[in-house]
């Protein structure tokens, strides 16, 4: 799957699973950051990240190992889309 397609899926997940306002999802760009407290971010907290990780694993059929540091991948939509695209490419 291409990073662009992954990005679209992530926007859908944000609305259906994390209950974001659909209008908010439209305004997202690849550069939008994720974690709460980071400049210009959509403000995800730790529970949001758990829900997001579950949704990603179930939607894309990948397993994200917590033994590794996942934080860099969850920095922005760009990093996350690339990460998921690279993981699904190998599948």
């Amino acid at each position, binding site marked *: 799957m291409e990073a662009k397609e992954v990005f679209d899926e992530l926007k859908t997940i944000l609305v259906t699973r994390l209950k974001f306002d659909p209008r908010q999802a439209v305004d997202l760009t690849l550069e939008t950051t994720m974690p709460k407290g980071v400049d210009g971010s959509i403000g995800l907290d730790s*529970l949001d990240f*758990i829900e997001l*990780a*579950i*949704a990603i*694993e*179930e939607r894309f059929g990948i*397993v994200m190992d*917590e033994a590794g540091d996942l934080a860099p991948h969850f920095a922005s939509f760009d990093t996350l889309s690339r990460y998921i695209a690279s993981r699904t490419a190998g599948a």
Partner: protein
Amino acid sequence: MKSVAVTGLGVVSPFGTGVKAFWEGISSGSCAIRPITLIDTEGFRCRIAAEVPAGIAGSGRRSRADRMALAAAREALDDAGIARAERADAALIVGAVGGGMLETEAWYWQRTRAGAAPMPRALTSCFPSSHADVVGSALGLGGPRETIVTACSSGAGSLALAADLVADGVVPLAIAGGVDALTRICFMGFNALKLLDPVPCRPFDRERRGMSLGEGAAFVVLEDPQRAKSRRARIYGELAGYGMTGDAFHVTAPHPEGEGMARAMRAALEQGGVAPAAVGYVNAHGTATLQNDRIEARAMRAVFGEGRVLVSSTKSMIGHTMAAAGALEAVATVLTLLNELVPPTARLENLDPEIGFDCVPHAAREVAFEHAISNSFGFGGQNVTLLFRRAA
């Protein structure tokens, strides 16, 4: 209580995911009780249980029990053909005990024994109420939501409460069931109580030495019969009544005369307006502990008369699935009536003379009945009997 229609079934059992695998397993008298792989059993007297095989759907970030509940509930809703829009008013009632304890235990052991600081994520799903949260949110169930915790009768109690909500017109439909995953605390606790047989359990056998543990999940869709008919839903059968009683006797032991059990069975029959003679089959609690089987038989005798009904124990094949048992056995009872086939009690070689009922040894038997009951008795004397009627 007015009867309610059973229009959807969903199961995750030690025979795998799906109602089909479950029915094939129990109707063929297969045994899913094997050496435990999920937890370390080194040094324990009993080292077997009926585990759900690998391949449960859903992210590994969810607890094992949440995944089983989700898969079973999804199957039941799909089976009943309940579309997303109809789910907005549907009630969700879940019988649960262990919650996400399996993962919580692993987290705690890692933290205290390995000295590591594992991710606290496991703790978000540790409560028994987690299943209702996960299932309700994922499947869009917007009506009343309850978790029933009455030990081994939790799964049956959830169906009873859901039936009331539907029969009283509070909701047009409800999804109800039970779930439990194998946990260390349950395995070690029952080992310590010396209630586990080192070999697969033998309900009603005079050589029985205790129960086998199991795990799984089952859900049913309960619906107003008129609503079910008007949308031309497939009706598996009817939940025609239930009885719920408390022994108020002892923390683990049932009342020696089975007084509370008998009252639960009588209450279910009375509520459904069904005479004891109209019941052909009892899906027994049948745990294979020395006490339960003898006392349950005594209670059945008091209600139905000596040897008047066929009796079998699903636990002889899938073990005691704790909070899931009442729901899994409710599905078994509905399918027994529908398919006119009574699943057997596996490995029953020498019937305990104190039992005094035909317990359908080894092989399933073809018999048609109008009514059957399913018994579930929890620790502390928390008794639930569900009465089912064959689909008209």
